[in-house]
């Protein structure tokens, strides 16, 4: 019995670490969707670029964790704004399908353009943290687990503060509520959308660096699956709703680690997508979403 409890607690620890990555990436998805109703398929690849920026900062520039994280976040924020300005902005009034196809195009461009630039081979992240392992009553907690959970919580609190209490946050909420009304009230909608992309991409970069540090290796295609799963997390919590993305991320992380813990780790991607389809069928607005009636 004791060992079962231990197993469960161990999977909770693993699930929270994994979930914090999904939650950080999901936040970007949900913010962008909330503001321009676009599924930014390239978001997972922005995370990949962030991971590479962090890798470059730690290996070539010999930086420690925090400065590397900040550099990665800055690089990705700039990339996010560039993507928005070049690829998405001309399509703001086009059909949703056209924007979606463009987003898929940007995603492939980053993946395979990345392959051309940094070569398809895997890169090993330097050990940024000590290999300390805390053994709390049989549950193994790695130093990396703690850093991951703490970093993501700090970033989420920061995001909450920005969205809730700053001027740009207020503008974001206004634009996502009603773009045209916000425009009439004198809000610079273009800058607000760019700011949303910048913040979302910076969070994704943080997730990328954490992932690189935690799993040790990075490659140009590393963003695809976590990106899709983070999207699942965002839909799960109700896309466009910030707290929903956090909860969805942790929920998905925990589900996955329990599936792996039950010895079915090869099925865990399938489980994530199954959850997605079930959520979409049963309650498409997500756990926290409100149903909006369609008007003709």
């Amino acid at each position: 019995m004791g060992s079962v409890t231990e197993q469960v607690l161990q999977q909770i620890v693993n699930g929270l670490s994994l979930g914090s990555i999904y939650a950080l990436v999901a936040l970007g998805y949900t913010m962008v969707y909330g503001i321009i109703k676009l599924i930014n398929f390239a978001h997972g690849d922005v995370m990949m670029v962030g991971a590479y920026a962090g890798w470059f900062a730690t290996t070539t520039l010999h930086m420690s964790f925090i400065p590397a994280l900040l550099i990665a976040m800055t690089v990705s924020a700039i990339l996010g704004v560039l993507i928005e300005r070049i690829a998405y902005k001309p399509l703001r009034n086009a059909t949703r399908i056209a924007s979606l196809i463009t987003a898929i195009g940007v995603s492939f461009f980053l993946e395979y353009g990345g392959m051309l630039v940094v070569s398809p081979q895997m890169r090993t992240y330097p050990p940024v943290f000590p290999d300390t392992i805390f053994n709390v009553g049989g549950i193994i907690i790695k130093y990396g687990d703690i850093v991951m959970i703490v970093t993501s919580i700090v970033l989420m609190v920061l995001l909450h503060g920005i969205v809730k209490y700053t001027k740009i946050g207020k503008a974001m909420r206004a634009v996502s509520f009603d773009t045209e009304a916000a425009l009439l009230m004198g809000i610079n909608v273009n800058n607000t959308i760019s700011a949303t992309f910048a913040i979302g991409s910076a969070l994704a970069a943080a997730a990328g660096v954490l992932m690189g540090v935690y799993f040790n290796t990075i490659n140009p295609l590393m963003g695809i699956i976590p990106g899709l799963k983070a999207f699942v997390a965002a839909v799960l919590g109700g896309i466009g709703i910030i707290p929903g993305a956090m909860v969805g991320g942790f929920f998905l992380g925990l589900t996955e680690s329990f599936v792996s813990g039950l010895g079915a780790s090869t099925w865990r991607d399938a489980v994530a997508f199954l959850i997605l389809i079930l959520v979409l069928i049963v309650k498409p607005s997500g756990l926290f979403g409100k149903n909006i009636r369609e008007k003709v």
Partner: protein
Amino acid sequence: MGKRINRQSVLTLVGVLLVYAIVQGSIFMDILPPFVALTLIQVCIFIILATSLNLINGITGQFSIGHAGFMAIGAYVAAIVVVKFHGPLLLALIAGAVAAAVAGFLIGLPTLRLKGDYLAIATLGFGEIVRIVFLNTSYVGGASGFSVPKTITWTWAFWLTVLSIIIIRNFIKSTHGRACISIRENEIAADVMGINTTKYKIMAFTIGAFFAGLAGGIYANYLYIIQPLTFSFLKSFDILVMVVLGGLGSLTGSVLGAVVMTVVSAALSGWPEWRLVITAVLLIVMMIFRPKGLLGTKEFSLSFLGKKGDKNASSKD
């Protein structure tokens, strides 16, 4: 009027026969390099995939990006019939296509209530689930793949492609097809006019899945080995690019898109990264400057189709 259509049909028939005869002749005389022969069969497979996806995405306006999932079902079922039950090729192809159609019906029933982005994501999730299921099934070889003898010849691939195009074209021209187009144009209005939108959406989805399954069966019986990785999101994306490039809603556009993209990727096969980067840039530029695709919803006239047939043949020889 009837006379004109007749002439155009004859022209088309002549064009189709000419393409077939030229390729079959060069295979017969053994002057066709194996790489070209492979590309030609792939063109056929992708034409079936692109036209069937166009039926769902372009004609009915339901955005699906899980087409590789149906292709995978068709491929694996056809392979099982041939390898495990020693069934004839035709039976295997039909079994694969029917299995994919059943899957399309079952997945379409609940998910087609979703709209736009949500449907896209649900179908993407479905495609990935199918792939993971095959990956974890040791009966069909799991990750290492499933060996299938090569029985598909140019004759099989070509005539099945022609048959698929004819069936899909006739479906689009029928009452049902017009109902599907009305759903694309305005679903609420179609509903109000008394069209059973759910029925027609599922019909289009099932037919699309059927032909994707057929293409999968052809693929499995041609390529010696099928692996789950072949049917990843990347494959669905490839098919989508062909449809979008040719024009959502244009059948001849899909054929054109499939031919162009398959030939371009065959030409760039030595540099796979470049191929995908170019495809991606092409797609973005296309969406920004010509979101309707090369042909939009227009079709080549039938007489032009005849000419185009000749052009395909000459570019391949």
